[in-house]
């Protein structure tokens, strides 16, 4: 099967050639009835076997081709079409040839045997027989003469006389038998012949019954003789005599005999001969059809294979495999095409390689840019002219506090409202873009409140132009400068505090001492009325100086550089301790402490954290008291967040904070209360930041209460 698949052509040609030889020998054997008689059977068997093999081979190829077409293999359809075309071209003439040949053969064989020919041969044979008949009659008459001469001879005379008689009548051989068939005497021309030929008993009996036997007898060397067996007139003896037929007659007769015999043989074999010839012609036609089919298959395969290879290589190249080249096997047009294809593949490979290199370079640049963008703390957006966001970096999502999908299919100019978090940002962006288009300012700053936290963003918009210089979009770079602003502000306030501490605190002590000295010196030296005035004035001065000292201390505390004494602190316990002071000292205020059952360990400064709790609770109490209504509520809640953070919420039902003040509550000297110094929350914020935490204030408005939410990192166990 492998041989058929790989190199089927050689077996096909070999078997076809052998079959041609076999059919030739079979045809030759039909020329004569005696020729090749022994090998004919083997020829038929070999022919059947080889025809079977050839048929199997062709059927196998056809089946293979059919399966290939069904499986839609490359080149199979073209192969099948070409095979059909080639075989159709060959088979039609073969079939036509067969039809005409068979008709012609049948008529030709029939025409060999007509009645006139029959009669001619019969007449020729009759003529030859008639020519020999005279010789036969002569032989009978001579033998009758011999019979008359020998019937009365004695045994002794018979032996002598028979030799004379044989010589006299010119017979080849004369034998005499008695009526029982017993040998009496004989004479032969051939001296070597001792025992005479005895006639068949049946013939002998027939002769004795009166029927003369006079027959021509063919001899094995092609000669003929006449045998006469008759009885003597007195029926006492039987004479057998052989006579030669002259060679001239024999030759003519045998020649006629041979011709007639051959003609009769052919005539008798007419039908089988015709059938055999038609069978042979059919086999030749069948072989020709098989050869046409096989030849078409191989020819089509030979033509289609390079095209199939080209097709497969083209497909391979279309899939991006540029290494595929085809070996050039022929120097014809297909070879030229293959060579051109290989050159094209080489050029494609080179250009593909160059394209890949530039692609790699581009990707490297893109990755480099992406890395830069990803590592930028500033947010970067690339917006096309239609306002759609084409590119953004991680920082932009973090700064805007949104997920990546918020940007997807989002346009600055889309009809739908953007997310609340983005509304202010987008509005500012639109204004900036309009300004940029008018060549005006490219920079802007917005302040946002994100979940109670203040955020200040600085935004810069620049135009993006292509190689031709056409505007294709805008590049937006924005940054969170809240920390920066706060730091600047805190630094400024720190400076103010230091100056206050330095400039104001120093003269306060002499003022206080002077006032006390004045009170002491003038006591009893002035009249009562003046003494009261002095007393009241100096007391006021001392009180105000003390108040100013407190204020300066507070400022000093705010401004001093953080120097933390970090220890492990359990916040539940600390909160309990601090909250206990307020629980006991506040009248008319409902207090509530919600703590976690498990310990909440933080690394922090115990004193600073106590101050943080004090400030928050004190603010709450003051806010409730300031509202002036009884039944206020103050709560402290500690919860452990999933992000390994402690959430500390101080909530009150006090005067609340107006929305416009909410963003400035951390600034020193800003307070919602009438009495407050405005440093409490600023100090709280500072402590929170010192402990790497965050703080947020929530309030629904005036008299709606306030919630301060502090997040502190928990110690990792």
């Amino acid at each position, binding site marked *: 099967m492998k041989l058929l698949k790989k190199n089927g052509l050689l077996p096909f040609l070999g078997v076809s050639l052998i079959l041609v030889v076999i059919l030739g020998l079979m045809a030759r054997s039909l020329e004569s009835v005696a020729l090749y008689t022994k090998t004919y059977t083997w020829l038929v068997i070999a022919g059947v076997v080889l025809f079977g093999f050839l048929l199997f081979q062709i059927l196998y190829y056809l089946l293979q081709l059919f399966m290939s077409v069904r499986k839609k293999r490359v080149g199979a359809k073209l192969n099948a079409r070409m095979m059909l075309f080639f075989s159709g071209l060959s088979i039609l003439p073969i079939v036509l040839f067969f039809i005409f040949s068979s008709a012609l053969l049948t008529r030709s064989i029939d025409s060999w045997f007509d009645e006139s020919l029959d009669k001619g041969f019969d007449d020729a*044979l009759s003529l030859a027989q008639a020519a020999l008949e005279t010789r036969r009659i002569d032989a009978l008459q001579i033998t009758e003469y011999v019979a008359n001469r020998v019937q009365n001879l004695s045994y002794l005379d018979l032996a002598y006389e028979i030799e004379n008689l044989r010589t006299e009548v010119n017979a080849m051989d004369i034998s005499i038998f008695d009526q029982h068939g017993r040998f009496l005497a004989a004479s032969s021309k051939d001296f070597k012949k001792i025992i005479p030929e005895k006639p068949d008993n049946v013939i002998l009996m027939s002769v004795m019954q009166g029927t003369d036997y006079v027959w021509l007898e063919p001899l094995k060397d092609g000669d003929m003789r006449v045998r006469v067996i008759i009885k003597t007139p007195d029926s006492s003896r039987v004479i057998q005599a052989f006579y030669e037929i002259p060679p001239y007659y024999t030759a003519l007769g045998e020649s006629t005999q041979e011709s007639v015999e051959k003609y009769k043989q052919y005539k008798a074999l007419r039908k089988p001969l015709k059938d055999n010839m038609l069978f042979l012609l059919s086999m030749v036609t069948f072989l020709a059809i098989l050869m046409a089919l096989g030849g078409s298959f191989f020819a089509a395969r030979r033509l289609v294979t390079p095209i199939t290879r080209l097709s497969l290589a083209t497909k391979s190249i279309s899939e991006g495999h540029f290494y595929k080249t085809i070996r050039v096997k022929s120097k014809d047009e297909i070879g030229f095409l293959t060579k051109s294809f290989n050159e094209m593949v080489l050029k494609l490979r080179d250009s593909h390689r160059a394209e890949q290199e530039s692609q790699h370079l581009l990707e490297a640049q893109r990755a480099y840019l992406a890395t830069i963008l990803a590592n930028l703390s500033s947010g970067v957006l690339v917006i096309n002219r239609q306002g759609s966001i084409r590119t953004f970096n991680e920082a932009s999502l973090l700064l805007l506090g949104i997920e990546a999908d918020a940007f997807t299919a989002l346009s600055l100019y889309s009809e739908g409202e953007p997310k609340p978090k983005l509304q202010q940002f987008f509005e500012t962006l639109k204004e900036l873009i309009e300004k940029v288009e008018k060549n005006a300012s490219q920079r802007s700053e917005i302040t946002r409140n994100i979940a109670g936290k203040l955020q200040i963003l600085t935004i810069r918009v620049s135009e993006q132009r292509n190689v031709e210089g056409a505007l294709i979009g805008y590049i937006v770079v924005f940054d969170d400068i809240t920390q920066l602003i706060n730091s600047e502000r805190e630094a400024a306030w720190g400076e103010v505090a230091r100056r206050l501490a330095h400039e104001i605190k120093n003269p306060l002590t002499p003022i206080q001492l002077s006032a006390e000295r004045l009170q002491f010196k003038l006591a009893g030296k002035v009249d009562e009325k003046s003494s009261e005035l002095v007393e009241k004035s100096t007391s006021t001065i001392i009180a105000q100086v003390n108040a100013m000292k407190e204020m300066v201390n507070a400022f000093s505390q705010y401004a001093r550089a953080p120097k933390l004494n970090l220890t492990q602190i359990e916040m539940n316990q600390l909160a309990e301790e601090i909250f206990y002071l307020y629980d006991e000292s506040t009248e008319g205020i409902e207090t509530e402490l919600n703590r976690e059952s498990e310990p909440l360990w933080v690394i922090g400064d115990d004193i600073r954290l106590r101050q943080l709790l004090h400030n928050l609770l004190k603010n709450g109490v003051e806010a409730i008291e300031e509202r002036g209504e009884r039944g206020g509520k103050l709560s402290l809640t500690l919860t452990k967040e999933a992000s390994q953070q402690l959430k500390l919420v101080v909530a009150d039902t006090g005067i609340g904070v107006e929305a416009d003040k909410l963003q400035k509550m951390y600034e020193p000297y800003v307070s919602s209360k009438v009495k407050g110094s405005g440093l409490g929350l600023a100090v709280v914020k500072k402590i929170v930041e010192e402990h790497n935490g965050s703080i947020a204030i929530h309030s629904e408005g005036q008299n709606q209460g306030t919630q301060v939410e502090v997040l502190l990192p928990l110690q990792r166990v």
Partner: protein
Amino acid sequence: MVGLKGRGKRQRSVLLAGTLLFLGFFCCSPSYALSGSELSISEVKVETKSERELELSATAHIAMSQEQMEIIYNGIPLTFIYEIRVKEPKPLGFKRTRLEERLRYQLKYHALSKQFIVKDLVKKRQTSHPTLSLALGEVAKVRKKRLKFDESFEKGEGSIRLWLDIEALPAPLRIPTYLSKNWHLNSGWFYWELPQ
């Protein structure tokens, strides 16, 4: 074969049905029907000539069909073959062939002389007979055929058969005769015990 699938079974059934149909048609066809031709061995006579030599005479019965007679009258010779075998019994029921001979006779009609010629193709001798029956009578007789054995031969069984040699027929007749039972003439083996 085990576990034939449905399709394979169907194909095999179709093949079997086709084969049976073909055989049925072939066996019932006129050319295959018997038409009077017959060969048989009717008598065998064996005489001991010496210690290692036997003389075999046999008589056969030959009946020919009209078709075969026509073939002869048209000058086409028929060849008859006598096949003689002598086998020596061996242990375990095996037999060893000790002698195998063939006698070939050709029967032919000579139109010029109107004689039927019987040729002994082995001895290269021929006899002429005025009638077919006489000629067939000549073919049907094995006369005093000497069978010689070597010294190692002790006892055995002889057999003889007569058959018509189709392979000797002219090539055009070959294929029809292969397909016709009328031409497959064979007497079958006739066995005899060899004299001790």
